[in-house]
């Protein structure tokens, strides 16, 4: 559906050229939810804007739904943009128009007759769950409702691709989840390809099939979300993964526990998919003469399976502990010994 090949974007600036996107290669499949994660300034915004021609790459080629976006212009580009719609962090609704007229705007642009427009708007309002708010103005809506209008507006012309530019970053956690569920629902129901950029790993975990991590304009890591969670390669990816697998206070709790139990070992187990479903701990206790103390655990759901972390404290003879760790390693479970330092 989308192919990005050797794409570079260089902006001129007073202090010399700035490379916002540096030699990015990605292929995004039809019907996939693809996430791009990175901190601000990583180039993800520029990258997503090149997908609908709001930015033109300095080098390389971008093909979306069979169209080479960097080469087309004028009416062909406008036509293409009706098939590649976009939703925004700050919603970007027209405050002078009601919900109904905001959703009708892309239909007006596409030249749909008024009667059909009203019919289509009604369908869209139902799809995003905004029945009864058609005559409200954006200023009378909550953030989540505004984004629903944004989504309805983006879907009006039956696009093939939906680009989400930090679509949930201005929303509270609960609203974020409801918008993400709506996106998954749309993806399944309409088979729409979704590309989203975010700085929240939570968003990636919740709805993406595959993810690319960007840093300094480059894609430093990419792959199926579960694999990236299981086995993050880059330091930045590990930091993002920690955002969802470790609650914030974990580090302090562990430190506290380490000082509380100077004996034995604290280890972190990471389970992926089926690994999470085996009675590992009871086997461990049964087979090894050790004290096993469960400190903290968390399971996260991703679009391609579940992922969990568990912190346990093992106390007993040194040889027994080493044996136990080796035993755990024999399953498909990641083990990390946490040292007191």
């Amino acid at each position, binding site marked *: 559906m989308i192919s990005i090949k050797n794409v570079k974007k260089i902006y001129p600036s007073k202090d010399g050229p700035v490379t916002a996107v540096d030699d990015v290669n990605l292929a995004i499949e039809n019907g996939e939810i693809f996430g791009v994660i990175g901190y601000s300034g990583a180039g993800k915004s520029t990258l997503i804007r090149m997908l*609908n021609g*709001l930015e033109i790459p300095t080098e390389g080629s971008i093909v979306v739904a069979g169209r080479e976006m960097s080469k087309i212009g004028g009416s062909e*580009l*406008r*036509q*293409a*943009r*009706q098939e*590649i*719609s*976009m939703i*925004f962090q*700050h919603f*970007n*609704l*027209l*405050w*002078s*128009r009601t919900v109904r007229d905001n959703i009708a*705007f*892309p239909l*007006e*642009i*596409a030249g749909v007759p008024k009667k059909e427009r009203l019919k289509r708007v009604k369908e869209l309002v139902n799809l995003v769950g905004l029945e009864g708010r058609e005559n409200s*103005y*954006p*200023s009378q809506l909550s953030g989540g409702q505004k984004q629903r209008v944004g989504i309805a*507006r983006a879907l009006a*012309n039956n696009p093939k691709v939906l*680009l989400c530019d930090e679509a949930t970053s201005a929303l509270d956690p609960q609203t974020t989840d409801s918008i993400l569920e709506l996106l998954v629902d749309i993806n399944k129901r309409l088979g729409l390809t979704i590309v989203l950029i975010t700085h929240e790993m939570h968003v990636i975990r919740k709805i993406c099939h595959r993810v690319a991590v960007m840093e300094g304009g480059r894609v430093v890591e990419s792959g199926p979300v579960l694999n990236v969670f299981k086995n993050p390669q880059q330091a930045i990816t590990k930091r993002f993964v920690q955002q969802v697998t470790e609650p914030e206070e974990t580090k302090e709790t562990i430190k506290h526990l380490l000082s509380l139990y100077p004996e034995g070992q604290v280890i972190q187990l990471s389970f992926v998919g089926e690994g999470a479903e085996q009675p590992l701990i009871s086997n461990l206790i049964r087979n090894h003469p050790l004290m096993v103390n469960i400190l903290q655990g968390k399971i996260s759901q991703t679009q391609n399976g579940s992922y969990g972390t568990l912190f346990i404290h093992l106390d007993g003879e040194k040889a027994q502990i080493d044996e136990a760790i080796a035993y755990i390693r024999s399953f498909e479970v990641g083990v990390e010994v946490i040292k007191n330092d």
Partner: protein
Amino acid sequence: MIEEFFPNVNWERMWEATRETLYMASISVVATFIFGIILGLLLFLTSKGNIWENKPVNFIVSSFVNIFRSIPFIILIVLLIPFTKIVIGTMIGENAALPALIIGAAPFYARMVEIGLREIDKGVIEASRSMGAKTTTIIWKVLIPESMPALVSGITVTAIALVSYTAMAGVIGAGGLGNLAFLEGFQRGRNDVTLMATIIILVIVFIIQYIGDTITSKLDKR
């Protein structure tokens, strides 16, 4: 009672002068609104980072606006006499005041239009582009409606300025309340005529302000 306070006021003359003032003001307000929006849009669209970014055009329009905005109105009328003669055919009467009124006020209003357009969220324009909107669609369906409260409050201020410009134009022969106050009130020493003309102008200004404020608050759904 009124006759007592305003013994010298010829009410028929006063009414006629009021009509002339209203005529000059309303025609020039409409024309200023149109030309001001066109100039304001040009200023906005050709400025840096916008759809028609174009330095030379922006420089030319901007200079034109600055020059005509800076010339004191009374001097502008005199400077424009040859131009007025060609366009209107005379330099006496209400119509003769119109070119100077419009050329004096449109640049003033254009700057206000530009400010109003700058206040539109850039994201909204970007969103419209991402939907495949043409520039004309963006102008008609995004820029103008989204800046409408600013455009209306701007034209209110400009209309009030135009009422006072018509009084100035009256002094050099364009008719209206200014003309009446100057010729009959000042030159003949009839202060009651000047006072009555002032009161009527004040009433006109208050009405314009009231209408402008009402429309602005009705339009503003933010």
